């Protein structure tokens, strides 16, 4: 049955879009104003004069901001790759091997994600000091993987559960082993699930703040959110640079999300209906 959305529905949608988008739009507008425009009263809604000087300034005068973005990218990609590999295998085992305590295992994995990461920080910091993992990409990648793996296991396991099990059984009779079935049958068939999960993990890692703040103490190793937040100097608060750096930091995410939006939606809703 086809249902037409009523006026109320549209109004609700418009309100939610405005609420969630206003900060981003304001951020982008701010990045296009000059200093006088930012501090003017009454506030300027449309940049006047419209200027790209903040962007030029960041690319020419503050290479550290770009460095933060690159760091975030390295950590995000590494964390995503590691999470998908481990999460895919764990999720497949939970979805298909008739493990005796699979429900219990799943709950345990999920319960890990209930700890506020901040509570883990002191012990994690000490362990990383002992391991020599501070200020290393690998260190933060491992920390983020530990933090986000439960989501990946859960999402991928529910995706695998939607695949018809007979395909894997046919492969078993054809002579494939468990790992081979996973790599050559299940993984290729599950790529929408992997894309959706991977993107979410990438975004989580990109935005993660507390661990990145504590485990990356050298300025050159900071990730974008940490670097930008620490950018304000002692006496001034350079809104124009911060907003511009933030816009630059969210662009990669926006681009990737735009490219894969179909897979994200498909992967997130897989298994919720026929």
């Amino acid at each position, binding site marked *: 049955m086809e249902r037409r959305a009523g006026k109320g529905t549209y109004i609700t949608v418009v309100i939610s879009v405005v609420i969630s988008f206003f900060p981003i739009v304001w951020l982008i507008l701010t990045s296009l104003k000059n200093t006088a425009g930012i501090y003017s009263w009454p506030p300027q809604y449309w940049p006047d004069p419209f200027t790209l000087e903040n962007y030029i300034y960041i690319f020419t005068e503050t290479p550290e901001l770009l460095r933060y973005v690159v760091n975030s990218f390295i950590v995000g990609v590494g964390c995503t790759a590691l999470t998908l590999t481990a999460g895919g295998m764990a999720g497949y085992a939970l979805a298909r091997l008739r493990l005796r305590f699979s429900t219990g295992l799943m709950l345990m994995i999920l319960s890990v994600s209930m700890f506020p990461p901040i509570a883990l920080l002191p012990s994690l910091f000490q362990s990383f000091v002992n391991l020599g993992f501070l200020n290393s990409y690998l260190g933060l990648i491992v920390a983020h993987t530990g933090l986000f793996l439960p989501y990946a296991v859960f999402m991928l396991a529910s995706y695998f559960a939607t695949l*018809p099990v007979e395909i894997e059984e046919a*492969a078993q*009779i054809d002579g494939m082993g468990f790992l081979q079935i996973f790599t050559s049958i299940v993984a290729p068939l599950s790529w929408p699930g992997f894309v959706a999960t991977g993107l979410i993990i990438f975004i989580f890692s990109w935005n993660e703040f507390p661990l990145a703040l504590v485990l990356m103490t050298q300025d050159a190793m900071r990730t974008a959110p940490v670097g930008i937040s620490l950018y304000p100097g002692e006496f001034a608060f350079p809104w124009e640079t911060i907003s511009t750096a933030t816009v630059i930091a969210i662009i990669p995410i926006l681009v990737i999300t735009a490219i894969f939006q179909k897979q994200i939606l498909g992967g997130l809703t897989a298994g919720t209906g026929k």
Partner: protein
Amino acid sequence: MAQVSLRNLGKSFGGTMAVEAFDLDIADGEFLVLLGPSGCGKSTTLRMVAGLESNSTGEIWIKDKRMDHEEPKNRGVAMVFQNYALYPHKTVFDNMAMALKLQKVPKDEIEKKVRDVAEMIGLSDFLERKPATLSGGQRQRVAIGRAIVRTPDVFLFDEPLSNLDAKLRVKMRMDLQQLHARLGVTSIYVTHDQVEAMTLADRIVIMEGGVIAQVGTPREVYDEPANAFVAGFIGSPAMNFIKLNRAEKGWRSEGALELPELNHFDLGSASTVTLGVRPEHIEVLPPETPADAWTYDAEVMLAELLGADALLNLSVKGEELLVRVNGTEYPDGGEKIKIRLAPERQHAFDISNGTAFPRRA
């Protein structure tokens, strides 16, 4: 060639027995059909033979080798699934070639074998296509081709025609018969469709609640059902059952239907019995026919035309009977008619356990 031997096979899922005490020898080249309602254990039995389920009790022997601890790939079986279970991301050729590739068969040999089988089942033009571009019937053909390419000792079919539409199902059924006649490979075929079972099987195993209810040729299970379950399951529409109690003279139903002595059965000392007559075995007689001990007056409650046949719902002394008659000329609802329950077409079952009473010679 192969012979499959299942000895005391059983499977329990968390304490409940899905299959119990399954004993059967399957001859070389035989086409065996496992038939039963859903949940009767037929698929579980097949999956145990395939090695997709482990068996809780008993042994599985294929070609005089004990197989129940072997990996599926080492059992010499090939399986066709209800939903085709093709590899969606691989071409038809790669789907069919997969098992041979994994066995490290030389490439040119694989090529030749796959092309030969594709030729045989009419898939030569589709080898480079992906399964998604094929129709349901073609996909099931690919699945069957994939099974043939392996030259297995045993074919296992798990309701392979259930996803196809009615017309295609009939066509594929005939194709399967021809294929079996040509290849002569021992086959075990699971279905809940009695028409498939009757037409394809050398022998039918009818299962109920995890145990074998009867094993026999299609003729045997139709003509001599071993118990009331088989009698009611085989045949469409289902057999009429009338509960009878011993009366002073002969037998009497819960209604008011009176029957003479059932001397053609060896009833022992039973004081109750379930009498069974198939709808197609009740004769509708012209009104002027002289009455005998087995003729009764009946009233047509409802007449339904099916095309070639018609079904009459009859009321006979408070008992309801379904009769199948020729569809060209038949009485209307409300008409009074005469019917005959021929003793040689009757079946009698023990009310307590459903077992058929033997017929006296």
